[in-house]
Each structure stands twice: as C-alpha cells, then as structure tokens.
C-alpha cells in the first residue's frame, strides 16, 4: 500500500491554477524527489497536504485512508511531518520547547520533559541528529536548526517526511550530512519527499523523481535511469542551455574605481580597491560573502557615501550617497536581497516598476502619478520581460523568486543603463530563470554596457565574465581574463591565500 497518495488535486488562486489535477504516489522506504521550477506548484501542493490550503478538487490518502482536508492536526496525526523551507521555529525558545510544542494536551498541568529528553536522545542516536536540547534556537547554526525541524517531525512519529528546499540554506558539508540522515530514515521504512530544483542533488539523493510544471504533473522517472538534461527538459518544458558570451572587444572605460577604502568592520570593509569596467565587458567579483561585497555594492548603488578614494562614471565623479542621481547617471542596480532591497512586497507590481523614475514624465505629470501611463508601461514591461503574474495590479510579494527578479530586471534594464551592478543576480532561482537573467545581462553587454557581476558561484563567474577579480578581506585582486586562472586557484584566493600573487 502506498504511504501517501494524491488523487487529482486541483487548487486555484483567482485566475491562477497553482495545482492542476495532480496525482502522485509515494511508497514507504523511498525518497521521492518533487522537481519543478519556482512557481510550479510544489509548495502549494504540500500546503494542501498540511491543511494550510483546501484543495478545490481531489483528495489525499495516507496509508489508504482519506485525509480530512483543511486540518493540520489531521495530517500530523496521520504521520505526515514537514520541514518547511523557512523554518517554523521560535528563536527565543529552547530546542526542547520547540520540539515539544503541541505534543501534549494543552490543558495538562505539567510538561513531561524527562520523557521528551529521553525520546530526543534516542532519535539523535538512531538517526545521527545530534543537537543540544537546552540551547536557544537563536544560538545554533542553520544546519542544526534543520535537524531540530526533522526531530520535530520524528518526535511526532512521522512516517512520511517532507522536506521543502532543504539545502537552500545549507553549506555543502551540511547538505551531505542531511543526505546521510535521509538514507538512515528510509532504511527504517520512512517515506521521504524531497522538494528541490537542484538537479545534481536530486540525482544524488532520490530513488524516483516526479516533475511538476506550471501546476501540472509532467511525469515521473526512476532516478537511476534519468540524467540531468532529461530532468531539466521535463522541468522547464524545453531544452535549457545557459547562454555563452560571444567574444567582444572591450570599449572605453565606463566605471573607474581608484583606491576605494571604506570604514567599518575590518573584513567586510573595502581596503584600497581599484578596478576599471569597460563597455562590452562583464567583470566578475568572486569571493566568500562578508568580504566586502556589501560595501562595494553600497557605494555603487548610492547607499553609502563614507569612503576615501575616487569612483568615476564616464569620467565624472559618481554622485555618492545619492541613489536617484546615480540611477539618472546611468547605473542599473540588481540588489542582492530581492525581498529586502529589490521590491516592496506589499505594493503592486506597477508601483514597484515605476519606483526608480517617479519624477519622469513617462509616468507622472506635475508630481502626480499618471495611473494610465504607468499601468500601460508596466504592462509593456511585464510582457517584454516575461514576468508571470495576474497583471500590473497584483501584489508583488505573490511573485515567485524568478518572476520578482524579472521585475527588477525590467525596472533596471528598461532604462538602458551604461553600467550595471548585478549582485548575486541568480541566487535562489531555477534553471529557466537563471538562463533568462544571464541572457539579459549578455544582451546588455552586447549593447555596450559595462557590468560588475558579484557572485559566490564560481561556475557562473567563469561562464559569463570577461575578467575575474577576487575579493578577500576587503582587498580586490587584479582582474585577469577568466581563462587565466583555474577554479582551484580562485578558490585559494577566496580563502585569503593569493596564490603567490600580490593583491592589487
């Protein structure tokens, strides 16, 4: 008997069909990978299982018995446990308290912490999930918090464990230890659903892969018979290849940074950074985050003005600390944190699209926003940049990560900036969206823009950059053509050992 079965589950939000007659079967003892792009409906499906949403049609069976819809308690009691992408833990409470919440009758006069400690210790031993029960959740690492989430589910005797994008927040070492845990869980007969859009992980950890695309089940394959290209094509619906830059002759200098030094925290502040970005050129900045990327981005975006040294755009000093002047001088900005700095989630899409040129005649007249023009322009940009949404009036926070990034691209690139700061532009995006963002950046390069690409992904930097410089402890190495250094060499420089070369 299957551990869990979805039968024709359909869920609509307004005109958007998030799940379209999804049917899926999971057997005990297997790891099923649920693959799909952002916005394909994976999380919605799991939210229906957990009663956060109610399906419009269809039913869910656990161990052959139908599950009451709209009830989290029913799902938990049936033995379904979920590890959410954004952990549902309270930072100010201890590990033990977080695990015990909801496991005892609310009206009981005391908590049986002794029994709970014993049970947690036994699970920690059996599954290799070591964690200090008395530590405050706010004090432990992200990897440990995830262990707490898994323990929470196991503590409730979960037989089916669902992990939503579990590796998004983990270091490679923590991810490996998670995979080992999943193995030991399935050996004990648990069924695991592993939600992800990272193909190499899915191939490494799962027994079977089910693919969702635009809310519908595309099909399922046995992992050992599948390969990356096949899965990518099932997920996106067409063959996706990441774009490759054409060789191009660098033009005149656009941005010239000379001896830039910022004050503040030692490792994250810039020390004597010099760099020139030319037209038709992408300069990659490699480095472990926290080594000065933020300081560099803040100066170039106009968010910081306290620095020494000079920054020149087209030969004139950059208007430091004045974001609007910087944008008007031809800088396009793609910020690192889409949600915090890129958009205002509670505002509508058209509002976010005009937020960089409120004073422009294109969207306003005498200081009053011209709704008609703004909406018309937003519609055009939405179409041009393929932002999938209900329309310009939709709330921006409802967009998936990829579509939110497309919105930011639309805002920044529609102005045809001559210099683009792209800070981690593809972090957290799926394959289709990554290829899209990269294509757009290469188009801008072909048009003659100079681009500074800050990234932690060396493969991405090697593929796109004309030249690469490494940022470590606030010092920037010389920017050399990307063929001139190996990935291993750059890795050493990122760790602060500059491979015999003096930091420039």
């Amino acid at each position, binding site marked *: 008997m299957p551990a869990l079965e979805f039968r024709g589950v359909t869920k609509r939000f307004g005109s958007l069909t998030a799940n379209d007659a999804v049917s899926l079967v999971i057997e005990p003892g297997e790891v099923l990978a649920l693959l799909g792009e952002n916005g394909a409906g994976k999380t919605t499906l799991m*939210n229906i299982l957990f009663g*956060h949403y109610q399906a419009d049609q269809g039913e869910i069976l656990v161990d052959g018995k139908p599950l009451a819809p709209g009830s989290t308690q029913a799902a*938990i009691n049936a033995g379904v446990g979920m590890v959410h992408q954004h952990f549902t*833990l*309270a*930072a100010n409470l201890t590990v033990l308290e977080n695990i*015990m*919440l*909801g496991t005892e009758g609310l009206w009981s006069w005391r908590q049986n912490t002794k029994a709970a400690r014993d049970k947690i210790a036994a699970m920690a031993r059996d599954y290799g999930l070591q964690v200090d029960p008395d530590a405050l959740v706010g004090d432990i690492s992200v990897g440990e918090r995830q262990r707490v989430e898994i323990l929470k589910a196991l503590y409730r005797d979960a037989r089916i464990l669902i992990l939503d994008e579990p590796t998004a927040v983990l270091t490679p070492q923590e991810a490996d230890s998670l995979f080992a845990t999943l193995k030991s869980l399935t050996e004990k007969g648990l069924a695991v659903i592993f939600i992800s859009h990272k193909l190499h992980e899915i191939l490494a950890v799962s027994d079977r892969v089910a693919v969702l695309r635009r809310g519908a089940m595309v099909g399922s394959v046995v992992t050992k018979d599948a390969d990356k290209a096949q899965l990518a094509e099932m997920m996106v619906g067409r063959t996706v290849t990441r774009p490759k830059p054409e060789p191009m002759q660098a033009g005149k200098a656009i941005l010239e940074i000379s001896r830039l030094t910022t004050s503040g925290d030692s490792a994250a502040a810039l020390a004597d950074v010099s760099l020139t970005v030319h037209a038709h050129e992408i300069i990659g900045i490699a480095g472990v985050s926290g080594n000065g990327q933020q300081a560099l981005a803040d100066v170039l975006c106009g968010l910081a003005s306290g620095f020494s040294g000079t920054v020149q755009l087209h030969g004139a000093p950059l208007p430091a600390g004045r974001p609007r002047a910087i944008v008007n001088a031809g800088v396009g900005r793609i910020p690192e944190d889409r949600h915090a700095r890129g958009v205002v989630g509670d505002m509508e899409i058209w509002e976010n699209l005009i937020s960089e040129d409120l004073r422009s005649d294109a969207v306003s007249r005498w200081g009053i926003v011209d709704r008609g023009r703004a909406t018309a322009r937003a519609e055009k940009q939405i179409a041009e940049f393929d932002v999938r949404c209900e329309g310009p009036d939709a709330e921006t926070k409802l967009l998936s990560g990829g579509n939110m990034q497309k919105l930011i691209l639309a805002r920044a690139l529609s102005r045809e900036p001559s210099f683009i700061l792209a800070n981690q532009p593809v972090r957290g995006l799926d394959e289709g969206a990554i290829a899209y963002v990269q294509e757009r950046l290469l188009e801008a390069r072909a048009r003659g823009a100079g681009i500074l690409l800050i990234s932690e992904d060396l493969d991405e930097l090697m593929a796109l950059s004309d030249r690469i410089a490494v940022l470590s402890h606030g010092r920037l190495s010389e920017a050399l053509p990307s063929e001139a250094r190996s990935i291993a060499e750059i890795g050493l420089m990122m760790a602060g050992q500059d491979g015999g070369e003096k930091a420039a």
Partner: protein
Amino acid sequence: MSDIFEILLTAGFWAATIRIVSPLIFGTLGELICERAGVLNLGIEGIMTVGAMSGWMWVYQGGGLWGGVLFAACLGALFGLLHAGFTVHLGLSQHVTGIGITLFASALSYFVSRMLLPSATTPPKIEPFQELPIPVLSDLPIIGEALFSQSPLTYLAILAVPVTWYVLYRTPLGLAVRMAGENPVAVEAQGINVLAVRTGAVAVGSALMAIGGAFITMSWFDAFYFGMINGRGWICVALVIFASWRPGKALVGALLFAGLEALQVRAQQSAGAFIPYQFFLALPYVMSILAMVVMARKAKYPHALLVPFRRGERV
C-alpha cells in the same frame, strides 16, 4: 540623606509600598500575558478603570467583596475579547485598537457610575477588604506589619507571580502562548489554533488588569473617583518592557516603582520646604525611564509582538 534612611525604616513606608504595588502587579502580569502571546494591549488603562468601577459598584449595590472581584474580572475579560476581536481576528492595528478600548472603557465607566448614582455629590464609600494578618509572621517588627498584614487581594497579587511563571514556563499551554508570540506559523504548523491561543491570552490578561483596577477601589480608596487610575496602566506597559517579559522581573520592577512612589510622598513632607514638591512627584517616572534605558537594551522582544497572524496567507 538621613531623612531618607529614616523613611526606609518606618513600617508605614513599607505598607504603602506594598499597597501601591498590588494593582501594578496585576496589571503588569496581565499585560505580560497578552504580549507574550504577541498582542500589545493598550486597553489596559481603560480596562483597569472598568475593574475599579465595576468591583466597587457591585459591592455598593449589595454584592459581596469576592463577587465584586469576580465581576470586575469578567468585565475585564469581556473588553479583552473585544480587543482580541479587532486585533487577533481582524488583524487591525494593536496600537490604535488599544487606545480606542482605553478611551471607550474609561468613558463608559464614568458614564455608568453617574447613571447609576445620579444624585450622589461625592462617590459613596464601600466597606473594603479588611487586612488579613498572617499569624506569627505579622508580629515581626516593621516587615511584619508591612508584608503580612495586608489585604487578601495583595496576597493574591503576589501569588499570581509564581502561578503565571509556572503556567508560562512549565505547562504545554504556556509553551503554546509563548510560541504564539514568537512564531505563530510554528504554532499553526503543529495544528494548534493560533487565534484561539491569542484570544484566550488577551482575555485572561485583561481579567487580571481589571482585578488590578478593582484593588484600587475595593482595598485602597474605598470609592470610585474620576481619573483615579491616573496612568497606572501605562506604567504597567513600561514595566513589562523593564521586566524583559519575565514575571519574576516584573515583580521586582513593580516593587521598585512602588517603593519610589511611597518614598516621594514621604520625602515631600520632610523636604518640601526647600525643594518644590513637583520634583518628588516626577521622581518615580524619571527613575523608571532611567531604569528602562538600562534594562530594555538587552530585552528579548517576543518576535511576533504586534504582528497579526492570518491563516493561509503567503508570506
């Protein structure tokens, strides 16, 4: 200086401190419970007024003293439910709703008392709670009279501190309340109804506030006057922050404030000749602001305080 030490050695000072602290303890614990569940309750000033009026009126109309306390608690809980309806279920601004509740509840209390006693020129006194000396302990010098010969409501206030602590930290219900104030999504994910937990916490907290108000008319002034709560509710809101949302520290903070208040009244009498009395009036408030500055810097806010929870909404 020596004057102050003399004051500290009088039984009258300690008795006054304990009397002043009792309503503050009820109010602070009540506010603390609300905020631990994630709901700021600025209705406290008005809810204390309701408690003061209703307890006194109950007794004046011939009811028993304990019946009056219960009546006040029930009305307090009712206003708590009103606050929860707006803030928890409808997700409206907790600040605005709380101030609205305070205005509404205070005005209603004065209105009802005038309606019921249209011909009274001064509010009639009731027979208040009598001191209940605890045998043996109350015979101790100075502290005996101050601590162990008090109104039963004072004993109840002091008892409420460990009880609140136990419920919050040692029972599954308390865990759910604290979790609702930290991360309501986590509570929801465990199949517990966040809205019910928060509503319950606000109702219980408001009932405690109302008992605090009832203390003032039933065990202190023996009658209900206009403006008699006099900002005590706001002091409780500040004390919760001072206490970093912990019941034990709340007791310490309330005692500190009450001690200063009792001290200033006596200091006015002894030093009033050469220092303006307004200086002493302001003293407890100045001191509490200073204490807040020191204490609140490392305070651990409930993370979800002021954040409404809506089921099934994408974040």
